[in-house]
């Protein structure tokens, strides 16, 4: 079973993602910010990380850099409320960029694609 680390400062979003992804058969753990995510990385050993951008303590961009220093191959999805124009960020560090929306079809299919499941 593939393991996914969901990083988001909004509790309701963490809850939603966890429910939805567990229903898809993934093992899901959550972190409230970039710092927490880094701590959990060695313990939880995720196969994929979903990173929100705007977070307190340590934001998604900083977390992305730090994770990349440790884990070069780990698939990371940047996930934000901003429009899809920000996609140029993916060119340098993340593997995908997903705009947050209520319809999680795109989010889930991106995860499956990155994990080679589809």
């Amino acid at each position: 079973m593939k393991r996914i680390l969901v990083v988001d400062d909004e509790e309701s979003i963490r809850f939603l993602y966890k429910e939805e992804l567990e229903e898809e058969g993934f093992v899901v753990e959550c972190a409230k910010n970039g710092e927490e995510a880094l701590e959990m990385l060695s313990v939880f050993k995720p196969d994929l990380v979903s990173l929100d951008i705007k977070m307190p303590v340590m934001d998604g961009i900083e977390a992305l850099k730090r994770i990349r220093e440790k884990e070069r191959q780990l698939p990371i999805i940047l996930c934000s409320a901003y429009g899809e124009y920000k996609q140029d960020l993916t060119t340098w560090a993340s593997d995908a960029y997903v705009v947050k929306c209520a319809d999680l079809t795109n989010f889930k299919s991106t995860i499956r694609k990155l994990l080679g499941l589809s």
Partner: protein
Amino acid sequence: MANQISNAIENALIHYETSEMGQKHEKRVKELSTLWELNKTLLTTVNFERILHLTLTAITIGEGLKFNRAMLFLVNEKDHILEGTMAVGPDSAEEGGRVWAARSQKKEILSDLITQLCPQGHSTLNAIVKGIQIPLEQDQCILSRTVLEGRPFNTQFPQLKEGWLQIRCERGCHLGSEVGCYVSEHLSRDPRVYSFATVPLMGKGKVIGVILVDNLFNQNPITEEDIHFLSMFANQAGLAIENAILYRNLEEVHQELKETQSFLVHLEKMVALGEMSTTIAHEIKNPLTSIGGFARRLDRAIPEESQEKKYSQTIVKEVCRLEKILNDLLSYTRDESLALKKLDPRDILEESLSMVQEGTLWGGIQLVREFAEEVPRVLGDPLQLKQAFFNLINNACQAMSEFLPDRQAGTRTMKAKGILSLRVHPFSKNGSSYIKVEVEDTGKGIDPENLPNIFNPFYSTKESSLGLGLPIVHKIITSHRGQIEVDNHPGTGVRFIVTIPSSEKGKGNRINGS
């Protein structure tokens, strides 16, 4: 006896000369006092139109310079032409007779009389003169020669029935040439018998225009003295007109500054609004994602036949709408830098099209593609351009759709019908290559009342729209150094024409490499 006779004759001669000199002086004094009166009236205003009218009225009024008609042409330095600006004078001898008879009955001070006369912009003569444009080139016409040589011309055409074409060239203006004489062609009923005079209008050290006078109706000959008097007045009038032009320019610049200032204030407000709405939209989006996400989970859990299914579906649908509004707002207000790539505009259009076709609007819409076989690449941001064309195509589909009541189900369903035409063609202008993309529908078109506002943010005629669809298109296209135009046909459809510069140099119909 002989001595006495010679003395008497001498006295008579002296008396004659003295009285002639007296008459001359009297005339000169009268002229100078008229000139002073006329100049005084020119100082009463700095309004451009008013000054011109005062000048021409002073030339035509019986108490002034007594010409039948006066016309004014001003130099347009930018285009190097002489432009007809204003004319004063009756359109016919009968009208002239009436005006002059009525005026002669009133005995008023000259300056008061002139200032009382209001501009008559509707006369035929004025309309003719305003339409005249003469190239400022040597030998083109007496009018341009008056400017270039800076001297008056008194042109008396002999009333000859035969051979008049040759004689009319004697002043050096090519009256018999192909160009024709602008003056006689336009201003006389019979060019063969037209006599007129022109004097240069002097500004500060340069000729700023020409005054043309004639006595078309009473056929009084124009004497050299008349020309001299007119020239003296024209020198004064020239300065007054030049001042009025400077004042008008100053007013224009002032107006422009005022407009720029209000635009900047508006811009500042928009920036503040943009920053605020971005923050708010961002804050709303997160909770909305979870509301919508859980609504979908609930919706999946609720059986189809239950009453609660309608509730959950309504929540899902409304969250979708709110998300769209927030996405529009975020994409309009965010200052995104362009991630430029070389793109084939046809591919972008196809991608936008597939985004629309996934939706529910497509129904009975017939698609017509007219893509040129060879299209040069454009340098653009693929996501932004895809969004721009998506908005245009989506709007076109919406314009061809309407809600129709479904009586059996008791609901309303969306029906779409019409032709959507997409065209991509290269073209070149001034040596640069461009791509033209057209999105045309056969919908209802845009209400002409709304047309000036369609690119203004937050202006919408749709029930559930924030009014950012077309402003986003406009923002994206202009950030690509492109242009967007609208060809609107109310009732039958609308065509949006987008022009974007190509990344390839040379002719628009060639592809230079890939």
